[in-house]
């Protein structure tokens, strides 16, 4: 019964999305009040119906209803409940349903919350949102039905990939999806504003919280994903430039650029065309990213060909949304009145540089990700790996760090280069001092040296906007900017230290044999078998001694039976100045055990920085929201005065 309720709600939601689109179009074309009045309530009900479909699917997974095909293929009745719950979106159909659910809920939220936009633009926005949702509803109903039954219900399901049985991964996709879908709302705003030719500060202010919120979720999702890959895969790396990682990085880069340009539009009425373009690009990146990875075309062209119907459907959606928006942009943006202009040396100018550098990095990542696909169409098989991305994107990322340090110290509209240099004295001093100290104490490579020195300069420059102010009266969004920029500096130090100072040892060790790695002496104390819920493992007992402290680590190599899989569970000791990372490998015939040991100084700063960046975004969001509420109250009071 639950499956039928879910399917019925899905059809109804799709019908309402179609109705929402038609009403919005009628309202805009004819200007009649009735269809216009209908759009908001329809959007709200559509969101509620979408939520019902997702709840139905989660209920099916929790109940292990083995008459539903999706549950059979992706779940197992013996699985811990949390993974049954997460299993609802740990597959193609379920994740698409989650996508459209968040999309529907976001549309409902826009209909309820949005008061800043002129009504015509809001109606156009909700119409665009309905158009996007309609495509995904159709995709689910015709090509990826999550509620399909099977005729012979087996007693048990096929389980979930053991690699995915990890709480980090259970909540990683929803976090990223909220980010992606938030960007889709920004896209709808841009399309709405293009349709009504109303690209101005009001539109930017309405769009900004959506961009900020989705950027915070994207940042958290990427940070969590990076740490998950680091500890779960046992490779000791934190970023691999894998197409799946790039799929979330590309929208993040575009959203970061959009976040900054939307501020220029909201406060200074500049960068109109550019902001609209970035909103379109950001959503294009989240669509291209999610779906090219989902369809498997990037990791393997083969998987894409297995289901040409789905592939064609996705391509059609890409063509309609991205192609449509770009065509609308080209046709309309020329008729939008140009915004304010500014001098090159100004806050706006700094933000333009920031945007250009971010766009170049985005271009590099996009080209690197798609190049194998392009090469394949010419019959050449190749893959593009970290050496390309690091070499191409690294120097530009460092230039971006410089721009980040300078930007917040610039005044709006016009500034004086001499005065700017005066303000930059402390950051430049910090960069120079750190660089010199590094060269004397522990010379790293060129890029890490630049990375750590510039991070020191950026850290100092980030705090400067707070100097000489009453900290309690400083607006929360200024705090947000400071914290986010500081977070970038912190992450950068972590990345540079990891690449410059990591010590690695790979050894076949006998029991009792001491091994040196970084500041530690590690001894293999013993190996014993252990058994878990649905796995068995060999567990090593390692004692790691540093100065006079000894810690015990227990890395495992695990074997799952259903399906048969082996994974290595690394053991990681976190100290204030870094992590000792240990992995247990195979035994050889002489009774020695393969051990991989890494000492990674300050590597934790990478993720600490990520959390700070997201926290900065959240502070900004709260700050903007509070100021707006205050302003609204003032307006209301004036009205009744």
């Amino acid at each position: 019964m639950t499956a039928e309720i879910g399917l019925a709600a899905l059809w109804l939601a799709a019908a309402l999305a179609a109705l929402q689109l038609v009403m919005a179009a009628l309202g805009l074309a004819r200007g009649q009040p009735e269809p216009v009045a209908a759009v908001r309530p329809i959007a709200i009900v559509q969101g509620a119906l979408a939520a019902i479909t997702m709840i139905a699917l989660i209920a099916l997974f929790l109940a292990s209803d083995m008459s539903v095909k999706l549950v059979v293929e992706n779940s197992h009745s013996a699985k811990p409940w949390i993974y049954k719950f997460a299993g609802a979106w740990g597959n193609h159909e379920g994740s698409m349903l989650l996508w459209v659910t968040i999309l529907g809920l976001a549309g409902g939220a826009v209909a309820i919350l949005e008061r800043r936009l002129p009504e015509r633009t809001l109606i156009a926005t909700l119409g665009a949102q309905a158009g996007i949702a309609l495509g995904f509803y159709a995709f689910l109903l015709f090509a990826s039905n999550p509620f399909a039954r099977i005729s012979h219900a087996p007693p048990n399901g096929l389980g979930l990939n053991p690699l995915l049985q990890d709480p980090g991964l259970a909540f990683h996709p929803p976090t990223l999806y909220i980010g992606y879908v938030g960007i889709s709302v920004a896209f709808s705003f841009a399309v709405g504003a293009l349709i009504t030719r109303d690209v101005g500060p009001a539109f930017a202010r309405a769009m900004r919280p959506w961009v900020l919120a989705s950027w915070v979720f994207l940042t958290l999702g990427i940070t969590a994903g990076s740490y998950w890959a680091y500890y779960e895969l046992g490779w000791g790396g934190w970023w691999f430039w894998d197409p799946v990682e790039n799929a979330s990085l590309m929208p993040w880069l575009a959203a970061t650029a959009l976040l900054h340009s939307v501020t220029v539009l909201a406060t200074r009425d500049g960068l109109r065309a550019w902001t609209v373009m970035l909103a379109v690009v950001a959503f294009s990146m989240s669509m291209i990213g999610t779906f090219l990875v989902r369809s498997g075309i990037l990791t393997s062209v083969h998987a894409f060909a297995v289901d040409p119907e789905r592939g064609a459907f996705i391509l059609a959606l890409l063509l309609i949304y991205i192609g449509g928006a770009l065509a609308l942009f080209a046709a309309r943006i020329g008729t939008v009145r140009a915004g304010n202009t500014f001098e090159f040396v100004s806050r706006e100018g700094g933000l333009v540089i920031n945007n250009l550098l971010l766009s170049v990095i985005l271009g590099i990542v996009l080209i690197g990700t798609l190049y194998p696909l392009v090469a394949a169409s010419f019959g050449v098989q190749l893959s593009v790996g970290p050496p390309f991305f690091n070499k191409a994107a690294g120097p530009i990322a460092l230039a971006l760090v410089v721009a980040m340090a300078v930007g917040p110290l610039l005044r709006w509209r016009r500034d004086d280069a001499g005065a700017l240099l005066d303000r930059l004295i402390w950051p430049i001093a910090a960069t120079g001092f750190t660089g010199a100290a590094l060269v004397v104490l522990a010379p790293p490579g060129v890029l890490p040296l630049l990375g750590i020195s510039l991070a020191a300069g950026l850290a100092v420059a980030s705090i400067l906007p707070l100097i000489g102010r009453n900290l309690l009266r400083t607006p929360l969004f200024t705090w947000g900017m400071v914290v986010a920029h500081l977070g970038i500096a912190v992450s950068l130090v972590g990345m540079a230290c990891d690449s410059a100072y990591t010590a690695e040892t790979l050894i076949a060790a006998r029991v009792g044999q001491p091994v040196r790695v970084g500041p530690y002496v590690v001894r293999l104390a013993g190996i014993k078998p252990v058994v878990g819920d649905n796995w068995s493992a060999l567990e090593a007992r390692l004692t790691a001694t540093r100065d006079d402290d000894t810690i015990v680590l227990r890395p495992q190599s695990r074997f799952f039976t259903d399906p048969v899989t082996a994974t290595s569970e690394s053991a990681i000791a976190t100290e204030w100045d870094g992590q000792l990372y240990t992995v247990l490998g195979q035994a050889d015939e002489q009774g020695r055990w393969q051990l991989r040991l890494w000492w990674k100084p300050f590597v934790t700063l990478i993720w600490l920085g990520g959390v700070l960046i997201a926290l900065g975004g959240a502070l900004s969001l709260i700050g903007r929201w509070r100021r707006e509420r205050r302003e609204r109250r003032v307006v209301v009071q004036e009205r009744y005065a």
Partner: protein
Amino acid sequence: MRRWLLWTPLALFGLLFAVVAGGLIKPADRTVRSAMIGKPLPDFTLPPIAPGKPGLSTAVFRQGQPRLLNIFASWCIPCAAESPQLLRLKAMGVPVDAIAIRDTAPALRGFLNRNGDPFDRIGDDRQSAVQLALGSSGVPESFVIDGKGRIVHQHVGDIRASDVAAIAAAVKNAR
């Protein structure tokens, strides 16, 4: 801003779309093509490793009869899975020789006792030297060699039940 500039994003997207659509319509050929096919087998002489069974040298493959050369190891799990197919090929009259990679005599004896022994000769390639000379990257891997010592067919990975017919045909055609 120039008007045509506004249309460039759409044009770029169109290009991207064409590439992706192309990939969808005409999936790329992902089979590994060997550079070794048509080339003569490299010269090697390997000592025996299994008791009572001769070692292996290139000369064996130049005696006019096509043979199957299997590269395997006792520590390789797909190799164990492949054994029944090799036994079937043997039963179909295909002579099968092997090179054992990084193996030891006791471990190999255990492997042959467990999985059966389809091999006429087994060469001991402790350092993977011959494996590298053959351009083979992993175990198991099989080559069909014609009677003049030339490689005519390469099979990467374990031989599945569904591959047996094709390999038997390749041996027959090599005559």
